[in-house]
Structure formats: C-alpha cells, structure tokens
C-alpha cells in the first residue's frame, strides 16, 4: 500500500516535470522587498512584455542577496539600486560586475523623521504640540524625554538605520558627532518591516517617535512625517555623519552581457526615468485603491503619457498605448 502511494506520488512529480514549458524568454527582476521597486518592476515589465514580447518574473530576496544575484547573472534587471546603501557599489560599477543603464530617480529624501503632530500638534486627534521648536537634528537632546526608551528610561530612543545598510554606519557617526549619546540610545531596528511597524504603530497611537526612514515609500505617503533638518550637505565629511543626507542616486542595472543579448530592452531601460514624487503618487494610488502593482503600472503609463513617450520611440509608444487602452 505504502509502495503504491509512493509510486503514485512519484508519477505525479514526473508528470508535473513534463508539463509543457513555454518557449518564450523570461526576464528576471529583483524584488528586494519594498514597494517602490515592485512598482517599477511592474511598469518596466508591462512595457517590455507588451512591446518586445518577453515574459517577466520577480525574484524575492533581501537587498544584498538580490544585488549579489544581479552580479552573478541570476537576476537580469534591478530597477532600483539604492547606491548609498551598498558599500561596494562604486567598485562594482568600475570593475564592470554589472551594467549600469541609467538613473531611475535621484530626488528622494532620507534621514531622521518625526510625526508632524510632534511639532505642530493635531487638533483633530486632540494632540497638543509636544516639541514646537524642534526643527534640527541637533535640537533632539532638548526633547529626549518625549522619546523615552521604555527599556532604558534614563534616555530617549532614536530608531537608527537597518543593520548592514551603509546609512546605518553614517547615522551612528552622526549620533556620535552630535553627542546624541548623552541623551539617546541608538536603537537598531533589525529589519525594514520592523522599522515600518514601529513608526506606524507609534503614529497610530499618537506617540512621539524619532527614526530613520526614506522616501518614496507608502509609509511616508500614508502618514504625515517631517524630515528633521541638519547642516547643509558636506561631501567630504558626509560619511563621518556631518551634514544632511544628499538624495541617494537610485539607478537601473542589468547583469553582464544583457545589453548585447537584449539591445532593444536595454535601450528602453536606459531611457527609463521617473522621480520620487511620481513614484509616491503611484504608491498612494495602490494604497488608496488596493490595486495590484500591475494595475498601478498600467494606470501610471496611461496617466503619464508625456513622460512615457520620452522613454520610447514614437512608434513603440503608439503601440504601447494602443495595447493598454
């Protein structure tokens, strides 16, 4: 009986293995887990599928793992490479470990955020302004008691960067540079979802919280946070934590050899370019309507035709719009 069952199970497996596989080429996108990369994947994927006939799929993984997979050739397209978060990026571009096609957007913000009601209050929710004069990161020590760390009540808690991201080190240096250590603990949030949960949880409860985050993200679109100001950006001392963050370059990369194999796709990707606010608008659309990323991509293409036209030849553009409408 047992053997019969095994035989049956095996034959199912064999059958599944024999299932006809489609002959078309599949392009692989990296999905490093945050929502804007999924949106850009869907937009690029939709255009590539409609115009050039290649199917596409996403591979999930953390930032370093998907980045490593791009360089080993397992991932074809990386639609959002956050260059400041990858310590080896400059070197990898210089040594040609992947092909850099262009800039997706470079007008994003990142840094230390507090909910707007901490500074201005929120009459609708009955929240009084807690720190009306908080404007600069260096003002934080005056208000540390607002951000009290429950696990160490003698100090405030500042939610730092995700461990392993380049920004984590810069923030730690900033923390030392501004002597925040006297009044604050630098709290490592462990992971991206944990940090989002901490920020949104505190916001829902109307509590004061200060932490690292970045835009464009659904979280920054959904909740009203204020980026704390800092001294002007300083190229030389930036890594030591002096001055505000400059916007990070978010680039598009493909694996080695991609350009020669898929010249028309590479040509399109090298023209692809959006902005932080455009991406945010698409993410808000998803948040509000509950649309899938693919639906959002279609919506985006049809609503920003003048932008999409700059990515494609006139003929391609007309084909695309006709196909999507």
């Amino acid at each position, binding site marked *: 009986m047992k053997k019969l069952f095994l035989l049956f199970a095996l034959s199912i497996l064999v059958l599944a293995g024999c299932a006809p596989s489609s002959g078309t080429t599949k392009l692989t996108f990296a999905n490093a887990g945050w929502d804007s990369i999924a949106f850009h994947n869907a937009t690029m994927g939709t255009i590539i599928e409609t115009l050039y006939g290649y199917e596409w799929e996403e591979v999930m993984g*953390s*930032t*370093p*793992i998907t980045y*490593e997979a791009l360089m080993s050739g397992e991932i074809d397209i990386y639609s959002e490479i956050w260059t400041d978060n990858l*310590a080896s990026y400059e070197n990898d571009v210089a040594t040609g470990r992947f092909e850099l096609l262009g800039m997706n957007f470079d007008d994003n913000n990142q840094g230390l955020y507090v909910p707007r009601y901490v500074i201005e209050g929120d009459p609708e929710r009955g929240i009084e302004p807690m720190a009306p004069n908080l404007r600069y990161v260096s003002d934080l020590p005056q208000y540390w008691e607002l951000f009290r760390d*429950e*696990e160490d009540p003698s100090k405030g808690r500042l*939610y730092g960067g*995700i*461990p*392993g*991201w380049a920004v*984590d080190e810069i923030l730690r240096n900033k923390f030392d540079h501004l002597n925040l250590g006297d009044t604050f603990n630098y*709290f*490592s*949030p*462990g*992971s991206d*979802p*944990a*940090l989002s*949960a*901490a920020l*949104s*949880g*505190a916001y*829902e*409860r109307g509590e004061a919280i200060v932490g690292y985050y970045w835009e464009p993200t659904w979280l920054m679109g959904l909740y009203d946070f204020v980026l704390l100001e800092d001294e002007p950006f300083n190229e030389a001392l930036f890594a030591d934590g002096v001055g505000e963050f400059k916007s990070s370059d978010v680039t598009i990369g493909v694996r080695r050899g991609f350009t020669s194999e898929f010249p028309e796709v590479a040509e399109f990707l090298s023209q692809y370019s959006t902005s932080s606010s455009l991406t945010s608008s698409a993410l808000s659309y998803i948040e509000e309507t*509950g649309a899938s990323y693919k639906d959002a991509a279609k919506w985006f293409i049809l609503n920003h035709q003048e932008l999409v036209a700059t990515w494609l030849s006139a003929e391609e553009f007309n084909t695309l719009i006709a196909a999507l409408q």
Partner: protein
Amino acid sequence: MNWIYEFPFQLTIDTSAIDRGVRSFALTFDAVLRVIRQGLTTILLAISDLLTFIPWWVLVLLVIALYFKQSKRLWMAILYGVLLSMIGMIGLWPLMISTLSIVITAVILSVALGFPLGLLLSLSERANMIMRPVLDTMQTMPVFVYLIPALLLFGLGRVPAVMATIIYAIVPIIRLTNLGIRQVNAEIVEASRSFGATTLQTLVKVQIPQAFTTIMAGLNQTLMMAMAMVVTASMIGAPGLGAEVLIAVNRIEVGRGLVSGSAIVIVAIILDRLSQGWVKPTEEEGV
C-alpha cells in the same frame, strides 16, 4: 477542462479588515498592553542586570564546575570553559550576555507557563484536543506573520523578542510534560490511588517525579529552540549575537557571520550539555 487545473470558484478575503482590526485593537487596549510590556521589561532588566553583574571568570568557572559535577569529565569541563572564554577573547562577551538575558527570560517564562499547561493537558482529554492544533500553529506559523502585529502592539525591542521566543519555544515543554505524565505506568497511578491519594497528591508525589526525565528533556528542547530564535529576535531589534549575525548577513561579510554564528553555537552547546546533565543523574536514581 480548466477546472482540472484551476479552482472553479474563488473566495476573496478582506485582509484589510483584519489590518484595521489589529490597529484598533492596539488603540483600544493600549493601557493593558502597556502594563504587559512594563511587566516583561522589569523581569528582563532584572535578569539582564544579574548577568551583567557576574564577572566573566565567575561564569567560566561556574560552567566548568557545573559540568564537572555532573559528568566527572574534567577535560571536557575545561574545554567548555575555554570555549566560553573564547567568546570573550573575540570581543563578543557583552553581546553574549545580552543574548543570554533574552533567552533565559524566555525560557523561565516558558517553563512557568508551559509546565502547568502541560499538566492540564495530561489530565484533560478535551483540553488536549483543543490545544494540539494550537501548538502546531505556534511552531509552524511563519514568525513574521504574527511578529508584525506584535510590533504594532508592543513596539520594537527586547520585549517583543522575548514574546516571539516564548511562542516558539514553549511548545516542547508543554508537549513533553503532557507526554511524560501520560506515559507514567497506569498501575503505579492506580496503586497510589488505592492507598487513598487524591488527584493532586498522585500528580505531585507520583506522576511528576516519574515523568521528570521526560519533562527535563522538554526543558532542554525549549532551551535549544529559544537559542534558535536568536537571529529572528534580532530582526525586531533585540541586541546581541543575533544582531551581529544579521549585520554580517546583510553585508555579505562571510567571516564576521561565521565568527558570531560560532559564538551562538558555543553558547547553545554549553546550555545543551548543562541542561542535559539535569536529566541523567535522576535517570540513575529513578530506575
């Protein structure tokens, strides 16, 4: 034709209603959650303070002495002492203490909750039937599925880390307590009953001592599973060796990952050997 490979109908579950539910729950029960959080924080800080207070060499000597006492193997005892001091030599001692305080808190609370629950399950067939799928869920539900709501409710840090560890590690102590009591020879139980012992007396004086070995095996498993959660716990802001591993993994620093990973292994091995030792002597006495 299509229904062979595709389901003929689809249900849509309103997951956003669940999201809203969790959020409004967090708002409504804020005060209760705060009390739980503060209670756990107090226990955690007390254990953490105690462990930080013990000088490193006392802990090393303690491990050597405990292991020697139970196994009578001096060289192995010294080897464990040396391994433990290695963690200090590579500069990971404070991180290890931090990890240990979370693991030990979680294990103490797991035993405090799990042991009585296991007893209850061994006495009541109905409770057993209800709890079995619950225990299965606790062990197999992917951690982040319930961790993110826990973060919304409790915020980030060591407290949710302890709670996540308890949910995962409490299962063996419940299961093996239950199993141990049930496996006690029915004739022995009957004998004690016939001498006029009450259910409670039978339980405390006959069944628990008889099941002691199995219960201790459960404790050992609970300890090991708590150690296995160290890296996951660091993903929600628990400091310690797990955080070190996480940083290394996130930056693909293989060497750093191996070093801190090995430290976790050393701690786990020592905890395993020491807790197994509690089982063996009674085995000899018990037979």
